[in-house]
């Protein structure tokens, strides 16, 4: 039961900081928070090693909910999938905690920030460690809450307050579907435990059940998984609910790194991978998942091509990478998806923290057009950022991203989804392009804003050390866990969780695999080369010219495909109009009229009946006598 410590340590830190932070701990809050998360990290690593040796845990700590014959325990499940998630969450969280010491050092809400980080870590661990859907759901909502709190950390800023509201509301839409999915699981399997729901016999039993929806026969599993997937769409920022993630960059940069890049947004991928026995049998949903993932990857990448805000570029790249992972789960390549989740957490966390370091140096300005030449001033940040770019681009062999992304592409190809494979392969080129675009604009070339360049400086040790520590797994995670190809440590471990399906189903010959890898590597290198030509060789001419040539397409990408505007026009405005009508028309006139009418009736009756209240005893006695007479009469008649 040592695993319980993983949960309890951040919880203790959160309680201590939450209760005593404001008055007593103040600027020492990081000691407690980091102590908590370090304990979690250490225990997680121990657990990981034990799981590697085949020691999995599935225990009930206590019976939590008892309703009739439905029992939902507070149980802990540590299997291979959980072990990976634990390492990712606690490791990135620790790095972000340390980084925040430097990044947040003079913020008035210092203690509050660390309390929120502890809340997040705790919530994410609940999500990952639970052995039933209810704990997953509780963790799911708790991470939503901490995300809300952290996006709106600088709540006095209107954009931050708007962004956290947006994130919350958009997530609610997805969570509604998730909730419906949970209820379907509950009524189908009479239990929310993973062990009951993922039971092979139970699934076979319900496999044939179908519903008629709009004339089409949908299987119960399709509906169930689609509901669950709606939750993933919201949490993992998939089309059409991706709009909240870029806005979430209003939060402090460490938060963007931890929550909105490395861990929380991957909860959807984790959930789908966790439910792989269900998704594997839901063919319609799986196809939807593939295409939504593909489209999201394309969407994120195209928008990322044109943005000038460094954090937004990274945010759209996150959207795009999440699209890859989701697509992989849809194609049945759950291991590849988790592998990419694993590597992505490191290099995307690294990139975000790097961007925070740049931001720190540039006096909180994020416009890449004003940067340039920073490699001279910030060598550590530059090198680690470059490592991150190389990893994410998938173009540099043996970097972590190269393994995982190519595996996703290969698996998509192998599962017969040729069109999505083609699109995402091209998107890989775009990814390489826009990531290196950001790198070249920020670190290479000549400084564009002299004043800011002069004041730029390398960040303090608390910020650079996490960068260095994160760059290590960003380089080697693929080599250590992914070799030999499609049969590395991660594959061997995770095959216990996704047994009998996924990658085992589709096998490519080695020649095809190498061919596909070479192809995507070449596409990536082309992307990098174009970025080099555009932004190092002729930075003043080519980008502007291309933008002009592309015209409307450029505009479409630059304005994020007008999603915010479309939602504003077709969803928000009509809703506001209906609400206004209901408020001013319906509520003020109809409801209020009814309420007032009750008042008037009571008042009128009172004004009539008060004459009965004469104050004379005999009147009262008389009415009593009349009552007796009536009763006797009724007695007679009856």
């Amino acid at each position, binding site marked *: 039961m040592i695993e319980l410590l993983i949960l309890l340590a951040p919880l203790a830190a959160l309680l201590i900081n939450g209760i005593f932070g404001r008055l007593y701990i103040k600027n020492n809050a990081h000691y407690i928070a980091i102590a908590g998360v370090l304990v979690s990290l250490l225990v997680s690593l121990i657990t990981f090693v034990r799981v590697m040796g085949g020691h999995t845990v599935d225990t009930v700590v206590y019976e939590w909910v008892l309703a009739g014959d439905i029992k939902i325990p507070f149980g802990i499940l540590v299997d291979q999938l959980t072990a990976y998630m634990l390492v990712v969450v606690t490791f990135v969280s620790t790095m972000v905690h340390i980084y925040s010491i430097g990044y947040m050092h003079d913020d008035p809400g210092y203690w509050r920030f660390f309390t929120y980080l502890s809340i997040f870590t705790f919530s994410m661990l609940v999500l990952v460690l639970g052995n039933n859907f209810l704990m997953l759901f509780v963790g799911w909502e708790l991470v939503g809450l901490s995300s809300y709190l952290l996006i709106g950390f600088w709540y006095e800023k209107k954009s931050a307050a708007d962004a956290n509201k947006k994130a919350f509301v958009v997530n609610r839409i997805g969570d509604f579907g998730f909730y419906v999915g949970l209820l379907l699981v509950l009524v189908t399997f009479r239990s929310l435990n993973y062990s009951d729901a993922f039971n092979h016999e139970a699934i076979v039993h319900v496999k044939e059940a179908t519903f008629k929806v709009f004339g089409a026969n949908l299987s119960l599993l399709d509906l169930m998984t689609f509901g669950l997937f709606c939750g993933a769409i919201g949490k993992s920022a998939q089309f059409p609910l991706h709009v909240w993630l870029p806005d979430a960059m209003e939060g402090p940069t460490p938060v963007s790194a931890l929550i909105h890049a490395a861990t929380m947004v991957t909860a959807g991928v984790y959930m789908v991978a966790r439910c792989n026995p269900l998704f594997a049998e839901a063919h319609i949903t799986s196809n939807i998942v593939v295409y939504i993932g593909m489209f999201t990857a394309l969407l994120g990448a195209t928008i990322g091509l044109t943005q000038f805000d460094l954090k937004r570029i990274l945010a759209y790249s996150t959207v795009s990478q999440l699209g890859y992972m989701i697509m992989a789960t849809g194609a049945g390549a759950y291991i590849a998806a988790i592998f990419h989740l694993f590597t992505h957490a490191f290099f995307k966390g690294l990139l975000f923290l790097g961007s925070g370091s740049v931001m720190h140096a540039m006096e909180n300005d994020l416009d890449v057009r004003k940067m340039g030449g920073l490699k001279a001033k910030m060598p550590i940040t530059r090198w680690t950022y470059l490592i991150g770019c190389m990893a994410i681009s998938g173009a540099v062999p043996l970097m972590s991203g190269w393994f995982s992304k190519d595996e996703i592409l290969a698996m998509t190809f192998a599962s017969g989804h040729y069109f999505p494979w083609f699109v995402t392969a091209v998107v890989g080129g775009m990814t390489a392009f826009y990531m290196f675009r950001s790198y070249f604009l920020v670190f290479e070339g000549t400084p564009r804003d002299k004043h800011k360049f002069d004041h730029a400086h390398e960040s303090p040790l608390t910020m650079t050390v996490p960068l260095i520590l994160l760059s290590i797994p960003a380089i080697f995670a693929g080599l250590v866990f992914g070799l030999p190809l499609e049969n590395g440590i991660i594959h061997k471990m995770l095959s216990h969780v996704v047994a009998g399906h996924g990658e085992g189903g589709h096998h490519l010959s080695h020649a095809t695999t190498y061919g596909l890898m070479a192809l995507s590597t070449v596409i990536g290198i082309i992307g990098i080369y174009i970025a080099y030509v555009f932004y190092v060789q002729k930075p003043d001419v080519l980008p502007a010219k291309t933008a002009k040539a592309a015209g409307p397409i450029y505009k479409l990408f630059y304005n994020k495909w007008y999603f915010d505007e479309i939602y504003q026009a077709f969803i928000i405005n009509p809703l506001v109009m209906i609400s206004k009508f209901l408020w001013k028309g319906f509520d003020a006139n109809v409801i209020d009229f009814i309420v007032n009418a009750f008042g008037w009736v009571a008042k009128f009756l009172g004004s009539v009946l*008060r004459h*009965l*209240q*004469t*104050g*004379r*005893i*005999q009147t009262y*006695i008389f009415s009593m006598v009349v009552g007796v007479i009536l009763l006797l009469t009724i007695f007679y008649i009856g």
Partner: protein
Amino acid sequence: MTLQHYLALSAIIFGIGMTGVLVRRNLIVMFMSLELMLNAVNINLAAFSKYLHAMNGQVFIVFVMAVAAAEAAVGLALIITLFKNKETINADEVNFFKG
């Protein structure tokens, strides 16, 4: 003699007492009428006691009398207080409870 005879007598006396309560204005006389109604009830109790071969009816009469005595004591004290304050014991003129 049947039970009904006693019950009929009791009903008549009860009715007379009730009429007194309803139509008199003097609070003291109203109180007397109340005592009359209680007496009618006592006749009832005694009659049932006899015809059902039970003793508890008579015991109840004693309790009723105890309560009547208490009520008379407190009621008359109230009437005295009322008279002291309002110079009247006319039920028509006492309407503190008018709404």
